[in-house]
């Protein structure tokens, strides 16, 4: 085989690979482009949502669970005033401030519940236990205490909670999404 023929052979091969590759890359690329769309989506700016009335929260230091109701969008479906999760609110004797804790376990995201004894929180999945103010009870599988949510009391006594989700399974409290 002579040199020009070899060169022609190489060029033909290279050209074949490039053409075939480009042709295949088009559907793969289009697919990936759409598939990666969720990465552009974010949970949006966290809003303060009214969850209860100050006077209706017993001031006995025992946390109580309140549903969080807000408008929600799930891809193409829009929900108006839909329960999206829950928070625990806790008020000390005579206090005009309220502590708000997310009911989502910071370990793996299950729904933390109050022990029937009312003395602590416990996650039904991996037994992470928390004190009534959300502190970690060692030793615990959970890497951090329950997530406190920003909470404010309006002038008419409405308790508003900044509804946010935090990444599970890490030591720091990082907002998710």
């Amino acid at each position, binding site marked *: 085989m002579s040199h020009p023929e070899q060169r022609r052979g190489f060029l033909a091969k290279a050209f074949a690979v490039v053409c075939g590759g480009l042709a295949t890359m088009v559907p793969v690329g289009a697919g990936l482009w759409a*598939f*990666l769309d*969720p*990465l552009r*989506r*974010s*949970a949006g700016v966290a809003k303060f949502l*009214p*969850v*209860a*009335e100050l*006077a*209706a929260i*017993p001031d006995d230091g025992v946390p*109580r*669970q309140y*549903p*969080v109701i807000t408008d*929600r969008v*799930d*891809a193409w*479906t829009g929900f108006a005033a839909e*329960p*999206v*999760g*829950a928070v625990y609110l806790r008020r000390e004797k005579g206090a005009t401030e309220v502590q708000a804790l997310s*009911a989502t376990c910071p*370990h*793996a*995201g*299950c*729904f933390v*519940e109050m022990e*029937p*004894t009312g*003395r602590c929180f*416990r996650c*039904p*999945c*991996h*037994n992470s236990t928390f004190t009534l103010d959300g502190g970690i009870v*060692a*030793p*615990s*599988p959970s*890497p*951090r205490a329950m997530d406190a949510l920003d909470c404010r009391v*309006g*002038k*008419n*006594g*409405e308790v508003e909670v900044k509804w946010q*989700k935090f*990444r*599970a*399974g*890490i*030591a720091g409290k990082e907002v*998710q*999404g």
Partner: protein
Amino acid sequence: MSHDVDRTAAAQARKGIMGQLGDFLDDRTGYRALVHEALYERVPGGARWRYVWGSTLVFAFMTQVITGLFLWASYSASAQTAWESVYYIQHEMAGGWLLRGIHHFMAQAMVVLLALHLLQVVIDGAYRAPREVNFWLGLVLMLLVLGMALTGYLLPWDQKGYWATIVATNLAGIVPFVGPSLQQLVIGGPEYGHHTLTRFFALHAGFLPGALIVMLVVHLSLFRKHGLHAKQPITRPDAMFWPDQVLKDAVAMLAVMAVVLGVILMPALRAMLAGDAVVPGELGAELGAPADPSLPYAAARPEWYFLFLFQFLKVFEGWGATGEFFGAIVVPGLIMGVMFLMPILGNWKLGHRFNVAFTLAILAGVGLLTALALNEDYYALWVDKASLAEAEKIYDQTGGDPEKLAAALGNDSAKINAMEQQWKKLERVRHSQAFLEASRQAKADAARAIELAGRPEKIPPAGMLELVRQDPKSQGPRLFAQHCAGCHAHVDPLAANAEAVIAKSSAANLHGFGSAQWMRGLLDPAQVAGPAYFGNTAHKEGDMVNFVQNDLTDEAEWSKADIDAVVAAMAAEAGRAVPKELVGLVDKGRELVASTDRCGSCHTFRDNGTELGSAPDITGWGGREWLVGIIADPTHERFYGDNNDRMPSFGKATEGALPPLSGEQIGLLADWLRGDWYRPAGH
């Protein structure tokens, strides 16, 4: 020459039409050689039962492809249709329960067969040269199968699949660097919803099985290239794959299918033996209540073959974030790493023994963790609870306080240690009981959702969750527990624990409120000041108690028939069933209730002219409108006015704030208290 032609023609004639067609096709496709190659593989040392595992796995996968495609033909992946379409398959389509049951249990059989196949390959050393690549392919196939199991669990979009997926995807989120993006890609956005389902479905039915089929083709062709790894020493003559080994394989496949069918049909057999009706929709795979992100699901557990991973996360208590990273990522990653290295380790002098020991140790560890997980959840079922009665009593007395315990046991450290051990046991029992209760609740919720879905009106376009959220029977107990049970009891007075529950309450027992039986108790001098009525309230010494205890006991004024008549009239007012023997008394009762010499002297009733303010208006007492009114605002002059004891106005909001309960919630409570909810015909 002509002789040859004659012979060919004669041969053609002998072959018949099928033979000629075969020749025609073979001439153009060469299919005979392919079939021959597929079937006439030499099996060194003859066919054996121990060679069937790989074939049963291929069979299990084919079963999943076939049943999966047919399920696909009826499944709809979206947050408002996934549960609904699976419900329809399971409970309404003829044979749907069987199709779904086979798919569900064959998936579990596949995991077991995988473990057996892997174990056999390692024990036989079949990963050694030249089969290393095929061993690696096998491991990849295993991961693909586990991936399909994981993604399939979510597809019915029921509570258990939803919460298990939250845990699984949160674990994906802790992978270093790419974790959060990976998590967001898999769940299709920042929140779980439609795109979580569409993605999981695409993975489950497209990407993963597609990859699996490609890998499986390579796996099988490499298996053929290298030949069967025969059991040594070979003592028997070789045999052919067809029919000797195929027969054994086919028998094993049938046995696997028989086990799967047995698991599906066993409850039907049991029901038939017990003489009960068999409901096909209840056979096979379970369907939980529809996924609800706002409803706690304390019975959240992965499928049994992932329980060891679930339990493994508990091992790292107190390790903080490192523990979860270790338990979910590092250790499983290392184990898979060692398995991938097995063909290389096997070259080392003790390598094979190490590989076998490692595999057995992993399987033993998996078994142990699974057993621990099950023991933790079901502990209360097999522990001797009587032996803990003493510990429970002391716990209640001391409130679990170590100092008080020391004092109670006279500072005897041996006794204190023993008691602390008992307390630990007690805690495990309580956790197990909580799980069992949550499982029971989950079953009840699922049964109710299925009952509602079967209404003649069918499921609304907004989906099943909407229907469950509007169902008084599902929502009533939760709303009551959250908003009312702090004061009110709701317990059947005939129940075993009724007395204790009622004694602890500080307001009336609302079980059967509005019924004749409830009214009879109110008008009973022995009960009216008891804890089930006004006993623990500010009205304990009020006018009503006084009236029942003094006026009603005066038979000259109130005959037994008069009281019966009032009971009948009030039950009728509440829209409740009036006992048969009292039906004739309703009109007389209404006259007594309205009369300004009788009940009407304090209570407004219809148009009796008694002014509001001294006692609640009992027009429509116990009916929906009346209940909604009193729950919304008991301080309204129509009800207790200024005499209201402690009951909050659940429907009243101060300006700018939300009322504690929405109008819809109050309606749900009222309907639930009245027992007014959908019941299927025949119940």
